[in-house]
């Protein structure tokens, strides 16, 4: 039976629960999630779901009918496709007169025993390439080489569209199954560099191509490659990204060189569950693109979304996607799109919650996390896993060793945050604070064994104190370099600033 429809699971009751139990469970949940008392977006999303479930299960007649249908569709899948593991930073929190912070780590662990590693998913891909004048030379050349390699990588079950844009967009190759590889490659070879950068046209053309063959059984994705800033059409691009997300199409952005707007490309990607990456040299383009397409093909779940409904008195300060592809997460919409789940890797999200003062001793719920995904080869659409997390409140909590996985993740997140705060200070005009934060960052990086990044931070600190400005390259190196640290394991080899070129995460020295 399609798990999406399992109303008992949504409410969190046993199929044999009494009407009284169902009613009181619903009431408890409604108290926590009703939009009148809970301002968070996730609460509104989840409330609708439980209300709909209760409409059926709370009514004896409707419930009987539902039960009958449920019996007919056969036994439920017993083994989950992935598990949701939620770890708070503390099991017991103290009673305080002031607010306190609690971190919550949510991990999605694919079920290894299913042997999904071998499976390759079918792609419905569009590559949208910037061929403006600034791309002339090695940049465009390498993009062409990379695109050729991707064409080679794909099979005749994959669909590929290629769009090029500068001031206008051209659909070089309309979306179709990859059958005539030499023909495709020839078209790519002929592309010339000229014109300015108008991203919206290119993005829209790519979106339309993917839309033609969009299906929930496929990986629908747009890869945008650009080296520059677009003029005046950023809001349109973001609106398009939202539409794409609703249609189940992800957008990943690759920025070559220093000129592109990293904040904008981050937003484009995060709105659709895609990734954004910094390629600081044309040589790396080939590797990046190949990796990206290969990863896309290894997805076993797509359109993974996470809905966060904290209890009414709890606030989510911030959230960050840790693995794979670390990225800050926007809390302005719910559910949060985190893209794909690969069979061989864990996806995880860490969030910082703020708990108000005056907690009472006992146990209390914190946050209800609802994960949904499309399991690609199993026709399981809207597969859902729900976790409801609580903590104990005590006047004398025992001293706990913080969970290593959270400690480690936060340590690296701190480095990323420090470079962010330096940037914010500079934007406010506070040069002294920006310099201080960069110097602190250098110290921290050095003690974390990241000598090259520490030097980069020191260099930026000096530059800021002398010129009141960050260099674009320095800023991007620090931003994406500290992000890269998050992706690696606990015992991290030093990030070579040159490794930002190859896009590889070295796991050995």
């Amino acid at each position: 039976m399609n798990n999406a429809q399992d109303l008992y699971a949504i409410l969190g009751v046993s199929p044999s629960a009494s009407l009284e139990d169902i009613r009181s469970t619903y009431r408890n949940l409604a108290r926590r999630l009703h939009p009148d008392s809970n301002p968070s977006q996730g609460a509104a999303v989840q409330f609708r779901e439980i209300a709909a479930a209760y409409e059926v299960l709370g009514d004896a007649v409707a419930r009987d009918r539902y039960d009958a249908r449920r019996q007919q569709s056969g036994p439920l899948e017993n083994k989950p496709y992935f598990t949701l593991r939620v770890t708070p930073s503390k099991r017991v929190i103290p009673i305080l007169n002031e607010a306190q912070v609690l971190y919550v780590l949510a991990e999605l662990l694919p079920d290894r025993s299913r042997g999904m590693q071998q499976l390759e998913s079918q792609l419905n891909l569009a590559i949208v390439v910037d061929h403006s004048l600034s791309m002339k030379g090695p940049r465009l050349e390498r993009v062409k080489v990379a695109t050729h390699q991707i064409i080679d990588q794909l099979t005749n079950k994959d669909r590929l569209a290629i769009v090029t844009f500068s001031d206008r967009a051209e659909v070089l190759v309309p979306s179709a199954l990859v059958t005539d590889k030499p023909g495709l490659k020839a078209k790519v070879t002929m592309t010339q560099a000229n014109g300015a950068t108008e991203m919206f046209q290119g993005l829209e053309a790519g979106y339309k191509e993917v839309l033609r063959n969009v299906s929930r059984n496929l990986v629908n994705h747009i890869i945008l490659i650009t080296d520059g800033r677009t003029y005046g059409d950023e809001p349109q691009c973001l609106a398009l990204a939202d539409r794409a997300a609703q249609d189940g199409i992800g957008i990943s952005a690759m920025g070559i060189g220093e000129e592109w707007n990293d904040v904008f490309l981050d937003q484009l990607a995060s709105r659709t569950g895609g990734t954004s990456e910094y390629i600081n040299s044309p040589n790396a383009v080939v590797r990046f693109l190949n990796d990206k397409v290969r990863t896309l093909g290894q997805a076993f779940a797509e359109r993974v979304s996470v809905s966060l409904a904290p209890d009414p008195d709890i606030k989510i300060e911030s959230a960050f996607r840790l693995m794979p592809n670390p990225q800050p997460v926007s809390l302005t919409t719910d559910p949060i799109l985190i893209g794909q789940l690969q069979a061989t890797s864990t996806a995880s999200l860490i969030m910082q919650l703020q708990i108000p003062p005056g907690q009472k001793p006992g146990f209390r719920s914190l946050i209800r996390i609802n994960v949904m995904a499309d399991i690609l080869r199993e026709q399981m659409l809207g597969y859902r896993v729900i976790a409801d997390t609580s903590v104990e409140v005590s006047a004398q909590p025992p001293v706990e060793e913080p969970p290593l996985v959270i400690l480690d993740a936060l340590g690296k997140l701190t480095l990323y945050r420090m470079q962010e705060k330096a940037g914010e200070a500079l934007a406010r005009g506070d040069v002294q604070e920006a310099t201080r934060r960069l110097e602190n960052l250098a110290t921290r990086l050095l003690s974390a064994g990241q000598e090259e990044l520490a030097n980069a931070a020191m260099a930026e600190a000096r530059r800021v104190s002398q010129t009141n400005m960050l260099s674009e390259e320095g800023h991007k190196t620090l931003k994406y370099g500290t992000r890269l640290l998050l992706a690696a394991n606990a015992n991290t080899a030093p990030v070579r600033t040159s490794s930002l070129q190859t896009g590889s995460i070295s796991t050995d020295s």
Partner: protein
Amino acid sequence: MQVENWSRTCWWRESEPDNHGTTISKEEPALAPSIFCGAFAHTIMNTCPYCAHSNMEGIFYCEECGQILVGERATLATNKLVGVTSELVGRNTWGTARFGRQASIIIHIRDAAEPLILQPKEEMILGRADRNSPTASNLSLDLTPFGAQEKGVSRIHAAIRRGEDTLTLVDLGSVNGTHLNGQRLIPNQPRVLRDGDEVRLGKLVCHVYFKYQ
């Protein structure tokens, strides 16, 4: 079956889609042995041992300087001083950051005959009074008699500030820098001062001790 949403069982959640009792846990959390640390434990958690910034309870890494605040690595390893032979060695308050309301500091300047005993106000500026400079009056401690000029002490070199119950040392942008236990301070970045610390302004070395009533 009464299903309580916030029962004690929600901990490690191996959530299964058809686990209808979302509050049924797989294992009881194993509690760490209870250690009563009292109010002092919260002080350690909240105040950064590195820069004295006050962080909210539950924060793992100082929001100001990034220093880790929890676990074994939270206690700062001070560089042990070799060769200090005065009777102040071995005091059981060595390394304490606690500086109460009534306490004073003893500054033992190397090669000086007598230590200085002071009760620091909110901010104590250390430097070198210059006849020609008008800022001499701001100085709380003039180090000229101790060879400040030759040892590269700036006119306004560093400050010792008083927090709720800690003292911090801040370099005020001196030319030759301020070192705490051998580590150079970042200008305007306060560091917690502990009983027995070695402070070096330029080449002028001194030790700071706390004295209680």
